[in-house]
């Protein structure tokens, strides 16, 4: 995943590389995902999310379309 100044910069970057535009969302949504995803990593017994758990984390940030299905 990559960060851009604005959607205009995303569109230009994709166009120049012949890439389809993927999912564009806000850093606030990314922070909402990053907290549960990485916050507990220093806890003993941490484990990766199951696909269903990961989809629930995405959904908690409003990321619900098929792009986010696992």
């Amino acid at each position, binding site marked *: *995943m*990559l*960060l*851009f*100044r*604005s*959607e205009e*910069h*995303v569109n*230009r*970057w*994709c166009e120049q590389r012949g*890439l*389809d*535009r*993927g*999912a*564009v*969302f*806000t*850093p*606030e*949504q*990314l*922070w909402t*995902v*990053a*907290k549960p*995803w*990485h*916050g*507990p*990593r*220093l806890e*003993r*017994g*941490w484990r*990766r999310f199951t696909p269903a758990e*990961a989809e629930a984390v*995405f959904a908690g940030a409003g990321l619900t379309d*098929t*792009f*986010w*299905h*696992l």
Partner: protein
Amino acid sequence: MTDDDVRLHILRELIASGTAPSVADTGAALDVPESDAAAAYDRLAANRVIVLEPGTHDVLMAAPLSAVPTPHIARMADGRSHYGNCVWDALGVIAMLGQDGGVETVCTDCDAALTLTVRRGALAPTDAVVHFAVPAARWWENIVFT
């Protein structure tokens, strides 16, 4: 020694020194044979908990930390800084360490400096946007480019 001991040792060493421990270092630190540490690295990599340089036991990624320099720096309130594998992971470093901090990176398109700031658990407003080129189900086909 459990795989979780090894995982935590790798993360703690990366936080403390910025360098990922070798299997020899980890074996010595956890008082197990180097071969046992190597086997644990292999299992952690197979389970996508860490990423190794292909054909080696050199740690490339121990999420959210990168063992190699990247353009995504988590600069913490305590004055220390750490490399994230991407902006998501750099924000994850801030979440994991539970401090205020900022992610310093650049716009992928134009190289303009961008900073995401976290204070007291909240992200400061920003005009920047995040782009994922690859759908979630395909991230592990090439975790270096998502």
